[in-house]
């Protein structure tokens, strides 16, 4: 009779375990229960493994100033208890809301804006049955956690931040995955010895051997605490020909072999904090599983799980590290800003190589969380974004080569790149003049002036006309809606048929007195953005793919984001 306890009864209360060990009379009954289960299909064994697992913990961070979660996708087991921890490292508030599979998240979230005052009272949590679970709105540099029961139905469940303007870039997926098979016929052999590395167990004589009824690798030996080793052997059924990933964690050392091949090893004495993965391709069918383990002194723990083929990460051990998230896909990120320029109560100017803004780009970060890049080559607004301004590390560390893109999010380029602001057109359908890469023809850069609040006004001349181009921010990104107001003033004789190009897009749709301009995807520094914005200006008109306005002495243009509801 193996001197093991089993998992089922102890799931809810681990203290039962130690008690059961002192009451051997209970064991025969439990054992019977297990043998019955073992007769079930592999799936039953798998269920056994899963139900034995503790609550699965998922850790998700928000990346400072990037409007991003650090996790793209995580996997949970149907019906499992999931503890989700949201660490908000950003300067803006964020939540994490999990929606039902198939939910159009943007559509649900945008309903908030129909009654924003009420949505604000709910901390921007959508009032929708599609919300399955959610954290509270986490303030800047705080954390929130939520415990919920995973859906029982396999599928992809979207999650998102529902703060206004955040949803588009702060999304991910929770995968509810079918668990994989568990171990069958698990045996143990315990060895006594004092080791600092895994010994060659083949040359040693086991002190004790036996079966593990619940087929979960575990360490609860009543009389072994220090200086012992265990070899677990079992059969493992690969559901199909595929590559499988095994994860182990051990305090102290462990090594996993399948069919005699080492898959992953964590030798030597260390804590269980490190989880290591190893891969192996397996053919459909039964394989030999062998896990070798040793304990020196102090804490003792063993963890093993596998995933692959078409099933989710499945623990094969009774104990699961609390930090183990299972199958977690990290978002692509450079780890966040290293030397961000912080915008306080004055605009901050950054002249350097800015991705998408040519070689004479001028970045301006405005209070209110709106930023722009203006080109001193084309004398025009090139790019607008919100959130973080710019990370200077590329230019201020080492020699400083290359161009740096925006730090924030929701980037759009009104005229899709570098282009001159004004042109004389015979008709509004005429193609806009092509860019002269270094200096726009007929233009002369004159510099800029800062006002008392340090807001820049860009100055240039076009065909003898003195032009000033200035920007103001209304609202605050951190509080929700925000818009950018551009004021152009022309001093001099404006040529006939002169137009200012406000926007360029594959789609320009009139809406609410303005236009929604969209020009597909914008890729900058390996990040993708929706090149879409709202724009309004008196006299704006569509001409082909251009949004134009006849040049006049003073022009005011409002730029806003499609995810915000802006009253022009």
């Amino acid at each position, binding site marked *: 009779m193996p001197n093991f306890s089993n998992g089922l009864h102890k799931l809810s209360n681990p203290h039962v375990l130690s008690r059961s060990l002192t009451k051997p009379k209970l064991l025969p009954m439990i054992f019977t229960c297990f043998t019955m289960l073992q007769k079930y299909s592999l799936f039953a064994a798998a269920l056994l493994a899963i139900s034995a697992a503790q609550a699965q913990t998922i850790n998700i961070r928000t990346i400072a100033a990037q409007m991003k979660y650090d996790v793209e996708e995580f996997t949970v087991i149907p019906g499992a208890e999931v503890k989700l921890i949201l660490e908000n490292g950003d300067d803006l508030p964020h939540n994490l809301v999990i929606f039902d599979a198939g939910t159009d998240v943007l559509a649900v979230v945008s309903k908030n804006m129909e009654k924003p005052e009420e949505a604000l009272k709910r901390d921007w949590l959508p009032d929708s049955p599609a919300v399955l679970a959610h954290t509270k709105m986490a303030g800047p540099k705080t954390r929130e956690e939520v415990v919920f029961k995973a859906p029982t139905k396999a599928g992809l469940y979207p999650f998102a931040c529902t703060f206004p303007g955040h949803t588009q870039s702060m999304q991910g997926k929770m995968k509810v995955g079918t668990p994989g098979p568990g171990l069958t016929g698990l045996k143990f052999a315990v060895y006594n010895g004092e080791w600092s590395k895994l010994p060659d167990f083949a040359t040693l004589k086991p002190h004790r051997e036996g079966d593990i009824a619940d087929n979960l690798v575990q360490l609860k030996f009543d009389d072994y605490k220090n200086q012992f080793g265990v070899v677990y052997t079992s059969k493992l059924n690969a559901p199909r020909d595929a590559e499988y990933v095994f994860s182990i964690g051990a305090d102290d050392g462990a090594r996993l072999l399948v069919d005699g091949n080492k898959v992953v090893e964590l030798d030597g004495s260390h804590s269980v904090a490190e989880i290591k993965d190893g891969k192996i391709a397996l053919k459909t069918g039964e394989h030999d599983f062998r896990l070798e383990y040793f304990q020196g002194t102090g804490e003792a723990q063993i963890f093993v799980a596998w995933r692959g083929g078409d099933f989710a990460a499945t623990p094969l051990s009774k104990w699961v590290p609390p930090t183990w998230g299972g199958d977690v896909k990290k978002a692509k990120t450079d780890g966040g800003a290293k030397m961000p320029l912080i915008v306080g109560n004055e605009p901050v100017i950054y002249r350097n190589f800015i991705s998408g803004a040519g*070689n004479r780009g001028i970045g301006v970060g405005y209070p209110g969380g709106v930023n722009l890049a203006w080109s001193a080559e084309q004398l025009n607004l090139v790019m607008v974004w919100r959130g973080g301004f710019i990370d200077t590390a590329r230019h201020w560390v080492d020699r400083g080569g290359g161009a740096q893109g925006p730090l924030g999010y929701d980037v759009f380029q009104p005229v899709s790149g570098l282009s001159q602001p004004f042109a004389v057109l015979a008709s509004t359908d005429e193609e806009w003049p092509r860019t002269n890469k*270094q*200096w726009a023809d007929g233009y002369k850069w004159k510099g800029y*002036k800062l006002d008392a609040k340090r807001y820049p006004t860009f100055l240039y001349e076009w065909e003898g006309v003195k032009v000033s181009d200035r920007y103001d921010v209304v609202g605050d990104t951190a509080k929700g809606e925000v818009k950018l107001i551009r004021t152009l003033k022309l001093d001099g004789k404006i040529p006939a048929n002169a137009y200012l190009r406000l926007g360029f897009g594959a789609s320009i749709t009139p809406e609410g007195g303005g236009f929604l301009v969209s020009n597909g995807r914008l890729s900058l520094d390996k990040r993708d953005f929706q090149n879409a914005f709202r724009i309004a200006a008196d006299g704006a008109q569509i001409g082909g793919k251009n949004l134009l306005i006849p040049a006049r002495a003073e022009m005011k243009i409002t730029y806003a984001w499609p995810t915000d509801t802006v009253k022009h």
Partner: protein
Amino acid sequence: MKTLSIISVLFLTTSLAFAADKESDFYKITTFETPKETAMEVSSIELLPGDKLALGTRRGEIWTVSNAKGDPSQVKYQLFASGQHEVMGLAWKDGALYETNRYEVAKLTDDDGDGRADTFATMSDQWGVSGDYHEYAFGSRFDKNGDLWVVLCLTGSFSSNIDFRGWAMRIKPDGTMVPTCSGIRSPAGLGFDADGEVYYADNQGPWHGASTVQHLIPGSFQGHPGGNKWYPKAPNMGQRPPDPKDNSRMVTERERIKELVPPVAYMVHGKIGNSTSFICCDLSKGKFGPFQKQLFVADQSFSNVSRLFVEEVNGIKQAAVFPFLSGFKSGLIGGRMSEEGQLFAGGSDRGWGAKGGKPFCFERVDWTGKVPFEVHEMRAKPDGFELTFTEPVDPTSAGDVASYKGREFTYSYRAQYGGPEIADVIPKITSAVVAPDNKSVRLTFDVLTKGHIHELHFDGVKSADGKPVLHPIAYYTLNEIPAK
């Protein structure tokens, strides 16, 4: 017994070392604290009215500094401007500060008197910028004609990808840009001599066996042909000169290329420095010591300053280079000497390491009032050199040819990066005649080699009171041998 003698030798050596003069006995470096919120990577320095200074930095900031001429603990900084694309040149004129940044010369003014720049008026932005980090633009102060000079680094080391990379330009007061010299490689500083002639520092690389100090004569070709394709855009410069032949000699190619101006001085690589930067002329009328009107030239890599005595022979500038002062805290880039004879210097080691060891620095050099025993001037003569000293010499040692050792070498003038010292000639010093006032010595050599760097050691020379020369070495770039 043996041990004893070793100890006594050690003792002797140590006591001698203690007795010897040090640079710091004559010139003292003061390191200023700089504002914690920034990295003061000084790349340009200008003097402002009211005993103030302006510092331009690689991070694109311009700081004004008060009290930098006095007690260093009283120094105060104010951020005048920020967000500029590297400030590699600053010039003050009539209430405005002119900055040279990566793609323009702009006039900065503080319109409301709060100490911060409000107007950034572009004067000229007519040179090309391709986006390559190497394309630095260094700017000068106003020259004697009221023009600003800008030297434009090539796109990297070899080529010129966009307008006028590898050229020196003049910016006229109305903003007109005049292409002025071709042949620039990788400049790191501009300066004037006492007559207002313009010099720039170039760095070791292709067509540069060593870093150099060069004389910017309008219309000249400075030696690196990488940017010569822009001649058609510079009609004032005439026809494009022929490219130099690879693996040739500067002295040979000067015969072929009439526009080619040889370096005023080779800053001998690995000895004087590795990366020449600012150029300052001592116009303090003696307040910086005995080296009036000489040039003080810094090195980024060596974190030091060397001294150049420049003379003109057959219409060509050439100079003797002497070590001057080492021990600056970081790689020197920006420098400026005040009329009061204080040399302000600063820099950074970012991207290119520096001996100083600190990531950036802002420092001041003051003359202590003590005159070091040094070779003051070294002039070329038809058959040798004339050395004058800062103090009377001991006629016996100074008059002994054995006190001197010469070597003549050059670098290959080649497209390949850098290069070794080649074509060594070891001259025989045939006579050393001390002048009656004991202030100068006339040396005759059995051979002088035109175009070679003449390395001269004078370790044996003693002052009248028995001191050795503080820096007993000079490198003279003998572009021309005088007829008399």
